[in-house]
């Protein structure tokens, strides 16, 4: 496969590219979906192809083909360069690249149990079983469960001499129960909404003990229909870990993407409220806020050996004791900004141009626990498991809804509340972070559905988080 990538790079250079790289990607995905004990879909998708990018002047040209032959690969390189050259009709400043080590290496995701070798019947039995448990709870109308597994091999070659092979294995899944009344519907999910995804094998599924939690989840969905509406007002807010993971994703992860800060995503995903000249001084949050982007975390969904530009995986400080100190970057964006390359560029499959992507953007653990935080809370709401998310194009104004909430009064967990929501402004919200759990409650939550780019790309990102408390947060926003 390296030979095809090499041919593509040679084709691009011969056609005038200043720099070129190519990835051959062979990917396999298995998905199983069960609804109310009925197997809705058992599917496998496979793809193979090569994507080559060529830099000329101010623009990348990129071309992808599924035709894995020497001739087709070479032609793809030629075409990528021709596309880049056509960009000169609307040209800008020359695009620089930061230097990175030129390496020949290989990397494989640590995993114990190849998820594609586990019998399909075992997977189906697991999902049918948990939907039966949920359906057996009176009031549950819909019980769904799913598993997905990804096996990706990538061969990367650059015109500077990189030759890197990576084998990435990812596993994930989950389930949810929905109860419906005349007026509304209520859903509960496990381990988190859209499922929990990690790098690793089938052992990642086994550890979540699907069956043990199904009845509780289903009962909570039914109980929510009769719960009181989440009260409206400013309160202390305790977020469960997976919801905090998404909060990090949306209000920190995207805001620190250097391509957004530089305006490269302005029309679609948006820009950022962050200004580069304030790097190192901007107050992002309270002193409890320590955020890193760490692609080396074993088991986290955003972990790998090298990014899709051949830059080694690394840990980068993003927010230290509340001060913004780092960004997510690639070779081009970091060169434009005069920063070190972050190794955070990845493409979705063989046919998408690699771009800045979150790795594992997580909040470092604190020294408390959820129980201690609740015991220390006078008047708050504890919210768990994302139901809706919305944030503006600068990543400043957000509103999240969670599946379930509980009142917290005088240090005790109180009654369940339905339709909990909260809203805020990013730096103000993070500035009120005042309690933070850690230990076993610090989890590498995974987001398998991060959309960005045109054409759209879906990215897999990780967000380590433990339950945390914020103060004076507006909750209970209604239409």
């Amino acid at each position, binding site marked *: 496969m390296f030979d095809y990538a090499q041919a593509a790079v040679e084709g691009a250079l011969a056609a005038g590219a200043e720099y070129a790289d190519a990835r051959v990607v062979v990917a396999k995905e298995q998905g199983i*979906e069960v609804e109310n004990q009925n*197997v*809705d*879909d058992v*599917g*496998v*998708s*496979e*793809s*193979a*192809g090569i994507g080559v990018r060529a830099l000329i002047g*101010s*623009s*990348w*040209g*990129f*071309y*992808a*083909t599924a035709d894995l032959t020497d001739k087709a690969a070479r032609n793809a390189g030629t075409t990528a360069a021709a*596309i*880049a050259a*056509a*960009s000169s*009709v*609307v040209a*800008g*400043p020359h695009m620089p690249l930061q230097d990175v080590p030129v390496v020949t290496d290989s990397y494989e995701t640590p995993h114990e149990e190849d998820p594609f070798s586990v019998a*399909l*019947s075992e997977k*189906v039995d697991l999902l*049918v079983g948990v939907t039966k448990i949920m359906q057996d709870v009176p009031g549950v*109308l*819909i019980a769904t469960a799913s598993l997905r597994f990804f096996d990706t091999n990538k061969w990367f070659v650059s015109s500077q001499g990189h030759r890197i092979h990576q084998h990435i294995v990812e596993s994930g899944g989950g389930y949810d129960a*929905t109860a*419906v009344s005349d007026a*509304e519907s209520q859903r509960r999910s496990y381990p988190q909404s859209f499922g929990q995804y990690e790098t690793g094998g089938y052992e990642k599924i086994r550890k979540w003990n699907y069956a043990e939690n199904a009845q509780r989840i289903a009962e909570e969905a039914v109980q929510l229909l009769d719960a009181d509406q989440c009260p409206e007002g400013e309160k202390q807010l305790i977020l469960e870990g997976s919801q905090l993971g998404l909060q990090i994703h949306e209000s920190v992860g995207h805001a620190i993407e250097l391509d957004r800060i530089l305006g*490269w*995503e*302005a*029309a*679609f995903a*948006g820009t950022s409220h962050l200004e580069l000249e304030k790097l190192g001084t901007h107050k992002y949050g309270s002193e409890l806020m320590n955020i890193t982007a760490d692609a080396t975390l074993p088991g986290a969904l955003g972990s790998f050996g090298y990014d899709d530009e051949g830059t080694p995986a690394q840990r980068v400080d993003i927010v230290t004791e509340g001060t913004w100190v780092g960004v997510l970057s690639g070779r081009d964006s970091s060169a434009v900004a005069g920063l070190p390359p972050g190794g955070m560029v990845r493409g979705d499959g063989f046919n998408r*141009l690699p771009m800045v992507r979150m790795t594992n953007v997580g909040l470092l653990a604190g020294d408390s626990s959820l129980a201690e935080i609740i015991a220390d809370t006078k008047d708050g709401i504890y919210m768990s498991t994302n*139901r*809706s998310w*919305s944030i*503006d*194009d*600068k990543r*400043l*104004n957000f*509103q999240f*809804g969670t599946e379930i909430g509980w009142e917290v009064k005088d240090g005790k967990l109180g009654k369940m509340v339905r*339709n909990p*929501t909260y809203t805020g*402004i990013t730096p103000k919200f993070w500035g009120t972070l005042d309690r933070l759990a850690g230990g076993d409650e610090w989890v590498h939550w995974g987001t398998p559905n991060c959309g960005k780019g*045109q*054409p759209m790309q879906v990215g897999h990102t990780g967000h380590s988080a433990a339950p945390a408390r914020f103060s004076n947060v507006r909750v209970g*926003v209604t*239409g």
Partner: protein
Amino acid sequence: MNKHDIAQRVLDLVGDRAEAEVRVSGGSASLTRFANSFIHQNVGEEGESVSLKVVVDGRVSTAITNRMDTLDQVVDDVIEAASHQPVDEDWPGLAAPTEAPESLHFDEATAGASPQERASVVSDFVAQGPGMRAAGYCDTSATEVVMANSAGLRMEGRATSATVDGIHQTDTSAGSGHATAYRLADLDGAAVGSLAAHRAQRSSEPYDTKPGDYEVVLSPEAVSTIAVFLAVYGFNAKMKIDGQSFMNIGEQQLDESISIWDDYFDPKTLGLPFDAEGTPKRRVDHVEAGVSRSHAHDRRTAAKMGAESTGHALPGGAGWGAMPTNLFVGGGDQSEQDLIASVDRGLYVSTFNYCRILDPKSQVVTGLTRNGTFMIENGAITGAVTNLRFTQSFVQALGAGNVLGIGNDSRLADSEFGPGMIVAPSMRLAAWHFTGGAEG
């Protein structure tokens, strides 16, 4: 091997071991992207893929591959996988053989468009905003699809698409413009860029306005976002089966001025003449004069509800249900200026952004305004305001008495979820619930 040959080969490989449905799709797609007023990312791809569904004694399994060299292995594997499944009690059977309508939305020149042609459209867009920063894209694509199944169905279709979409930005504002057609030649980059630049200039130096209920005039793009939510969470029959759709067939649920239908045959729309299961497209009236008339069905939802498929199956979309993709929101007889002129105090919204459903059944959605939000006072736009967050029931917003006027400016409008699916007009609504300023 052409697509018909590939489809037949797959059916031959399956033989009498299973029922089978094959979809061979392929073509090319190219996108020229610009930011800070120059092209920075310029991409293209070509390829084919085969989607296969097999049914072994009521046991269903699917596969997708772009590897034509391993089709025999894929077929063996998917049959093996199906044979180990429980019986799919909801399997509706394969589509019966029928004729596909003609492909109405294909243009040879667009299928072969060059990067220079796309760059030319971009150049026209960018040139309309001197001194401003432009960002956006121009793309072209061509798709050809062959469907075949073991029940004897054979059909083919093809379609093209071209879009120019972008913003101009000042230091304090942004304005957007958009156009989609199946012919690249129909796109006017200068006109779209001019609208974006005009909106950006007019919305510079915005001021904060208090959240609350405002009368609004929504652009076609903002109306198309409403239509997406009505379709995905309401018209979609799977949502009805799951107890989460607002629709009650035969009931007056929206204002009598609202009609919404799906019509592949209208020349203003895009797409293929059949859905992912081989059901031909036809006109479907979802809402007539405010009365809920029909859900969108695929074969699975139709079988469950005792209806016929309406040709709305999505590729790989059984979990989502059925989605109309040639949607029309009925237009009115007033110009956008007329709509604005009739507002004493309200807001004009150019686009909505990051809208998400809070409750499907009541269609309560939260989101923000973006790329030009304007104050209307005494029948005229008097200034720009900063973006606002809303939390609003879309069904309530279009409810009886709440639709105060509909524009005569219907166009293929880009909702925030992508171009080419919805033709919509401007609309004046009595109330919209804004819950906060976007920047605090």
